[in-house]
């Protein structure tokens, strides 16, 4: 057991898999010699050499396309798209190529690869470098989608993603890179499709992801202390496959659902989960299903504006308090 940053957990997770399997290769912009612009892949180039850790031109379509061609013919590539906002310049691979080739070919071809990308706000980078875009991947049939909130999950989900025979998009949160957490020694292998109940509670269920997880936990503590509202907090971790059992089970117990998501309001994962609950757990519900999201606007750069645009523990507390009374 050692304390590790989320950032270092990325390199550790990749290294673990590259050591295990020669077929695992890693490519992206400035990921090799420079160790990545978020310094999340420092040391991999030195350890695994230029044949397995490759710097590319600024050609995101070539990066994802090459990853797919390699995956389809025998390698297990990990591709970095530096900021998740840039998925827009190579979206054809996300939307039309990776997720459809197995189906269209009646199972002849597979696409076992991982795309990892820096997601989310908090760095005052403005509208084109701060978005949370998990739903861009979640909405596409045929992908798997994970977004870890802790260093241990980073390592374990990375391993699960690399070993998974399907294309997995992994959203790392930029504002979590500097956070620390205990990570067990030795090989770590987690499972895709398992949510985690991080706090048990009986009055309401809060479902959160990535950076919103610590905020939801903080809100839950305050709700308990200040209002006596006892919230269960679930870290979704994996959007596809989605652990609806854990979520529906929790709502069955608490009778209330609040989702806390960073992506802008419309058609986010919160809407998906809220809709599933409003359908399948309707008779368990004691009150409205409430989504707490970033407002449906582009993101501002200025620090004071960015600080209030995402859901904060204070806003979570306020929304839940108001809705529970």
């Amino acid at each position, binding site marked *: 057991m050692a304390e590790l940053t989320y950032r270092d957990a990325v390199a550790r997770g990749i290294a673990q898999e590259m050591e295990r399997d020669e077929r695992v*290769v890693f490519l992206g912009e400035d990921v090799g010699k420079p160790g990545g612009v978020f310094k999340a892949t420092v040391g991999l180039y030195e350890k695994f050499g230029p*044949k397995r850790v*490759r710097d*590319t*031109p600024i*050609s*995101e*379509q*070539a*990066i*994802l*396309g*090459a*990853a*797919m*061609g*390699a*995956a*389809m*013919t*025998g*390698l297990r*590539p990990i591709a970095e798209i530096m900021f998740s906002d840039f998925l827009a310049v190579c979206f*054809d*691979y996300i939307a*039309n*190529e990776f997720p459809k*080739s*197995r*189906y*269209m*070919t*009646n*199972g*002849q*071809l*597979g696409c*076992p690869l991982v795309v990892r990308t820096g997601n989310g706000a908090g760095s005052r980078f403005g509208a084109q470098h701060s978005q949370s875009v998990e739903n861009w991947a979640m909405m596409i*049939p*045929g992908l*798997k989608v994970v977004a870890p909130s802790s260093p241990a999950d980073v390592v374990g989900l990375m391993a699960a993603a690399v070993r*998974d*025979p*399907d294309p997995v998009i992994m959203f790392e949160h930029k504002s979590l890179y500097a956070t620390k957490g205990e990570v067990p020694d030795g090989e770590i292998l987690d499972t895709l*499709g398992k949510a985690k109940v991080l706090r048990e509670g009986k009055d309401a269920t809060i479902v959160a992801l990535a950076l919103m997880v610590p905020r939801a936990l903080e809100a839950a503590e305050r709700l308990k202390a200040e209002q006596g509202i006892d919230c269960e907090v679930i870290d979704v971790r994996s959007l*596809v*496959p*989605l*652990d*609806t*059992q854990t979520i529906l089970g929790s709502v069955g117990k608490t009778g209330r659902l609040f989702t806390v998501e960073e992506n802008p309001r419309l058609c986010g994962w919160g809407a998906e989960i809220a809709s*599933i609950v409003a359908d399948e757990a309707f008779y368990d519900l004691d009150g409205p299903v409430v989504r707490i999201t970033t407002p449906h606007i582009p993101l501002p750069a200025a620090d004071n504006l960015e600080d209030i645009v995402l859901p904060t523990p204070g806003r979570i507390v306020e929304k839940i308090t108001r809705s529970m009374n």
Partner: protein
Amino acid sequence: MDAITPNGANDDIGLDTRLELFRKQVEIRDFEKRAYDLFLQNLVKGTSHLSLGQEAIAAGMATAMQPGDLSFCTYRGHAHTLARGVSMEKVLGELMQRDNGLMRGKGGSMHLTSAEHGVMGSYAIIGAHLPIACGSAWRAQYLGQPDVSVCFFGDGTTNIGAFHEAVNFAAVWKLPVVFVCENNLYMEYTPIADVIPIEHPAADRASAYGLERIIVDGNDADAVFREALKAYAKARAGQGPSLIECLTYRHSGHSRADPAKYRPEGELERWMERDPIKIYRQRLVDFGVDGETIKAIEQASKKKVEAATETCKAAPPPPVEILTSDVYADGGWAWRN
């Protein structure tokens, strides 16, 4: 080896290969014509993109390949799929969206794939497969495998971003990939000349990637075959990619819906004189191949098409159970528990 005969029948290509080149072209031609007929009978569903007039490219490129080499095709992929040895029945079954189709009707005519024959997919988003072919070539390079990845596309495809990214990427990484541009003068309905400021959409851009300018007569299977051999050898030798522009012409419209009215008067007729099959048939004759041999090939082809047609007509549609199969590697489609 014998000395080279004066008429070239025993030259660098040789008679056996020439007969193979002819057979492939004839079979593709007959198949495509049949596909068109069946479309008119409403038996070929969805869309379809014929390679009538472009057979020499598919035949030349595929015949020069070794087993294990990989093809990456477009929606206009019947010809390349057949040229790798996939059965007519399976291709036609897919066009007719029957259960005996290559992908049991799940993919359709634009996505023909036969991994066991090295046909690693047909892609219907313009340009998407060029980077994918790079990735396949990267795998060969990384694992030290000897195969070449061959990627086919049209003239119009040279204007999309993925083309640029892929050719540069392949050149920088010295990947064993061969990019084959079939310049048939048209995109869907718009002439390529209207949308490029140069004459040759692929060849005039090769130097932008440090590559040789290669233009080949795409209606002459021998010319294609020779250029293919060179490019594949270069790729296998670790000397990187090639970008080959084949000049050709499609005899029919872009897709089933297109009567091709936009073509200037006489253009088709001029190109029909340079019909690849006519050219190649004459070449065989010039090389002294007897009429019987030629006729046998032609008749065998017709028979194959006939047999495939009958089989496919009799084949059932795909069972509805496969609707949700093979979304994920576990065979199913579960996105939740």
